């Protein structure tokens, strides 16, 4: 896992306050990952990585890995 992936996982752990998180963690498997936390994740990842995730894409994010495509480029 690269530096960026590791940082992403750390951000998700911190925002959800859940220890067991990997790139393949699905939102439906984490009780704490509710709609408000989902938006907090988006805002936090946008800030940490200096990116912008379009509103219409937010609903398509199902796993931690799904955030990666917004961090490239």
């Amino acid at each position, binding site marked *: 896992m690269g530096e960026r992936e590791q940082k992403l996982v750390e951000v998700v752990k911190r925002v959800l306050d859940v220890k067991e998180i990997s790139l393949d963690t699905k939102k439906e498997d984490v009780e704490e990952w509710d709609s408000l936390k989902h938006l907090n994740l988006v805002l936090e990842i946008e800030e940490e990585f200096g990116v912008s995730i379009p*509103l219409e894409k937010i*609903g398509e994010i199902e796993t931690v890995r799904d955030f990666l495509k917004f961090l490239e480029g």
Partner: protein
Amino acid sequence: MKGQYFIIGGGGTAKDVVAGLRGGDKSVAGVIVPDNEREQVSKWFGGRILSDDEFYKLVKDNSEEKISVVVAISNNDIRKKIVDNLLQFSNIVFPIVYLGNEEDGVVMGKKSLGEVVGRGSIIYPGVLINEMASIGEFVLINYGVYLPHDVVVGDFSVIEINASIGGGVEIGKKVTVAEGSVILPGSKIGDNAIVGLGAVVMRNVPSGATVLGNPAKVVFKR
């Protein structure tokens, strides 16, 4: 214990209900919270504070008496869980609670509030309901909401401050319509959906979805 209300919950909604009842002619018999919230509640409520167990004992000891309960918790899932548990006690009743001074003028038309709104619902001041609307049980309608003709609101839903709801809008069960959102006439909002802060809903919202933005889009689904 006639005219006296037991309030369940120690958060913001409970504060609103206690304040609203104080302003009217009804009195608060006690507030029921878990032990770890007792100290916090004692800071703003000078009356009787009971734990769940103490309250259940009171309900059983007074089984011949009707006991009025207001479940003042804005989280729809928790509110439903508590109500489901309280339904085992046949002497508990759930009045509709209007938090303003005068119930007159809340319903536009000839019907009374009780003919338009289901039991256990909490209606804030500044709410206006067309008599051709139909509001379910244990619903919270917050300040500044107008519910026009043919609107349906399902049980255990909450409509927050200044939500703007069009005619004929059908809102399912356990739905949250957040502050300042706008729902276009005729839209349907599925059960357990959340219409986020300031969202402008232009079409139907599926069950379990959270929508946000203008025009509102699904940002989360469970």
